[in-house]
């Protein structure tokens, strides 16, 4: 397969790596439910990574949030390891946002968690790494102060991160993509441009 890797999670309900074999578990369990991705481990961090390509070190991943509920999180992850529970992540529930690193199973906040904020479905969460600059973006723009210099993780695969065990009507993500930053900055730009175009023509 060629990058960027994409998934609309079109598969039967079940464990993500089982239903879509281009994903591997990094930590905990994630699942496909109603053609969307969810975290599926009780009260713990979860991550799955793409496994079918080799990523450059400068890479991105994004996912569109289709459902948001309290205390169940999902978002994109980058530089996911194939040997440790190691990755950079950016995830939301319905009113909290976290930008963090997971190094060998230890979670560290990179900036102030944003809690009690109004999160909405349809948002595109993106995280990218360029050298040691790690940035989280919301709908194409840096999300507040969510950018930092960090050298903990230098390489890996694009993926998705989450927290908690979701049920049918819980936090879900869809339209996932991951790729190399140098590759025309991803089709996300095309999606964003298309949305702007559609907004204009439907006025």
């Amino acid at each position, binding site marked *: 397969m060629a990058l960027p890797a994409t998934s609309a999670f079109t598969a039967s309900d079940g464990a993500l790596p089982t239903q879509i074999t281009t994903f591997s578990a990094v930590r905990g369990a994630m699942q496909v439910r109603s053609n969307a991705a969810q975290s599926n481990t009780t009260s713990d*961090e979860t991550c799955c990574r793409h496994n079918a390509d080799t990523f450059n070190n400068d890479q991105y991943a994004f996912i569109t949030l289709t459902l948001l509920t309290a205390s169940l999180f999902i978002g994109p992850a980058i530089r996911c390891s194939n040997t*440790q529970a*190691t990755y950079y992540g950016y995830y939301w529930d319905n009113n909290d946002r*976290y930008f*963090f690193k997971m*190094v*060998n*199973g*230890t*979670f*560290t*906040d*990179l*900036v*102030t*968690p944003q809690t009690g904020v109004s999160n909405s479905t349809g948002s595109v969460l993106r995280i990218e790494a360029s050298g*040691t*600059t790690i940035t989280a973006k919301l709908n194409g723009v840096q999300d507040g*102060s969510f*950018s*930092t*210099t*960090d*050298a*903990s*993780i*230098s*390489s890996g695969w694009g993926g998705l991160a989450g927290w908690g065990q979701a049920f049918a009507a819980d936090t879900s993500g869809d339209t996932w993509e991951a790729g190399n930053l140098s590759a025309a900055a991803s089709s996300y730009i095309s999606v964003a441009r298309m949305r702007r175009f559609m907004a204009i023509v439907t006025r």
Partner: protein
Amino acid sequence: MRRLLVLLCVLLFAVAPVAAQGEIVARLYFVDIVQTGIYRSPDHFGGRAVAPDTELIGVQWALMDYGLIPQGLVAAEVNAAQQTYLAGLPDVTVIPANLDATVTAGNVNAIRNALEARNIPATWVNVGDSYRVVLREIAGYFQFMQRLTGITGLNPLTQGITLSTQYQNLPQVWQDAIQQAAIDLQIDASGLTGTTTIRAILRNVASQSGSKVYRLGSFAL
């Protein structure tokens, strides 16, 4: 008219201290990293699993940690009351607001001791060094230690390794990790010998940072 002017002056003096107290400024602090279960965050500032101290609720911060060594440099947006609170905490080291100010004969030893107590090499800090220079060097240590512990997944201090440990006495996995971290961060490790200490490795790494800019919150070091 005169009464009106007097009233205006009274109001201005009454409001001015409140405005100063509420003014938000960016400051830097060295803090301990605390861990609850798998979750690490800068002490007092809160995080994923820990609430901030009451005095620091709402403070926006960014963390550059010392890898898995539980120390960190925090850039925080604080008001005067929050700065006073942080300055009063015995486990917080406050960096002067003016990073271009220099270390003086009166505080050089205190600075060295505060940093060494956090296992940050600092005996090299001298009178006349600007705080910006000191922080850039330390940011270089932190970045290298992030990469090193990102590879090993371990805090070296819990593995019997200290700043004085020589390269030749490190377990093979740590020697390999140092070499790999140097490659990953494009650092020339050719000068490394068996007797090179961790302290010397960190100093050497920082000296090779060149024009690299370390971004932390609103700071660019």
